[in-house]
């Protein structure tokens, strides 16, 4: 079955593969982009905010591109979340930084790679 599928598909695009083993690789090469295309281009990062007693009752949660250089670290969204509260950022696949800061100087930062899954972050605000 797979052999037949490989032959028919790879022959259609005139793939220069003579034997059936190479044709199977050809099949894989054809299927992988299709699977990637079918994957959702939209994910989300969710989280819950907890804090030490010294921290404020609300924290600003910042979502930016994960870049070391200040000029490239573009801020995408931010939301003010009460301690105990939850949030959700809808994002494209990519690398991000989730940062939390509050008025009392408590902080949290985490790098998040969003590919196939939707990461959940437990944010613990701490005084640095």
């Amino acid at each position, binding site marked *: 079955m797979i052999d037949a599928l490989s032959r028919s598909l790879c022959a259609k695009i005139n793939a220069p593969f003579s034997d059936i083993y190479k044709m199977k690789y050809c099949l894989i090469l054809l299927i992988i982009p299709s699977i990637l295309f079918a994957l959702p*281009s*939209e*994910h989300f990062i*969710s989280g819950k905010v907890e804090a030490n007693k010294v921290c404020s009752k609300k924290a*600003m949660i*910042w*979502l*930016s*591109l994960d870049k070391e250089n*200040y*000029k490239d*670290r*573009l*801020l*995408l*969204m*931010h*939301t*003010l*979340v*009460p*301690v*105990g*509260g*939850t*949030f*959700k*950022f*809808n*994002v*494209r696949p990519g690398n991000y930084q989730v*940062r939390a*800061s509050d*008025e009392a100087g408590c902080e949290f930062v985490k790098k998040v790679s969003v590919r196939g899954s939707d990461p959940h972050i437990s944010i613990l605000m701490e005084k640095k």
Partner: protein
Amino acid sequence: MKKLLILVLFFSIKSWGSAMIECPHGMMRIWTQTVGHQCVPRFNPEPQLPQGCFGPISPLPQNPFSYFPYPLYQPAYQPWWAHQGNFYYPNLNYPGPWSYPGIQQHHYPGSGNVFAAKPNVYVDSIHKNKKFNFKFASSEKISFLATTPFLPKSQTWSGKIVDKDKFELDDTAYDYLFYDVRLPKEKMQFDRGVCTTRSEAIDWMLKDLKEMKYSNLSLQDFEEHWRVKIPDYSYYCIYPQYNAQLDPALPVEIDVDQHSFIRTLYVLVPHKDELDVEKSASEVPFPTQDPSENRPTAKIKREIEFREWGVAFLGY
């Protein structure tokens, strides 16, 4: 030897003194490693003593510090998060990654050219405790960008209204429900609106919200957020979207008896140069009609009143 030391001391003081330049009135002396001392204009003018026939008159000041020079730079009030945001991000004073005249939409998922940033939903209830469900009931896919609290797949926030003006979900109280969303531009109106300077635009929106009896807390939140997040361009055209536009574009069902829901979203289009119909490069026409005619009325008081405000920018 003593004479030599005195001479060295004399010349060193003289040379240091000659390097110290005297600056005229209205200027201040600064020093940098590359240029040395130089005079630059003060940011705030020095107070002048009143002049009499024989020089400055020195009345007894009531405040001993009244003639003390002003600080060189007095920043406008900024909320705590703006200081922190500026420290970490280059575009804090923009609603997102920005390329004039709008948001760089390729950074975001979903579709829709109108980026509604921070619609906040507030509540004002006569009941101390009341259960509620707030559901986004669109039959089409909604392109949310952010929500607080977490919005589940059912697209419904369920909880109770507590202390008359707060939402409680999973034992946590929220001052407001928050979401960022992309909306289709074709469902917005661009005929009614006003064009003015940036500062006047913020004042106009606050006045408009007051007309619809938005709470003081919601007005404070609005001002605090948007004085920071509206980019610093000379002019803005505001195209207010009220229930007439928002209810069809993003329908919401709230299953609480005796409630009302007033919705407002200001779509802002910046203009770098003065507002000139013929010179304008904007793809959005200047508004030609009075927006207040479409403003929802808040005359009838309901048991539970929901109000949301938001500001949107176009994506490119």
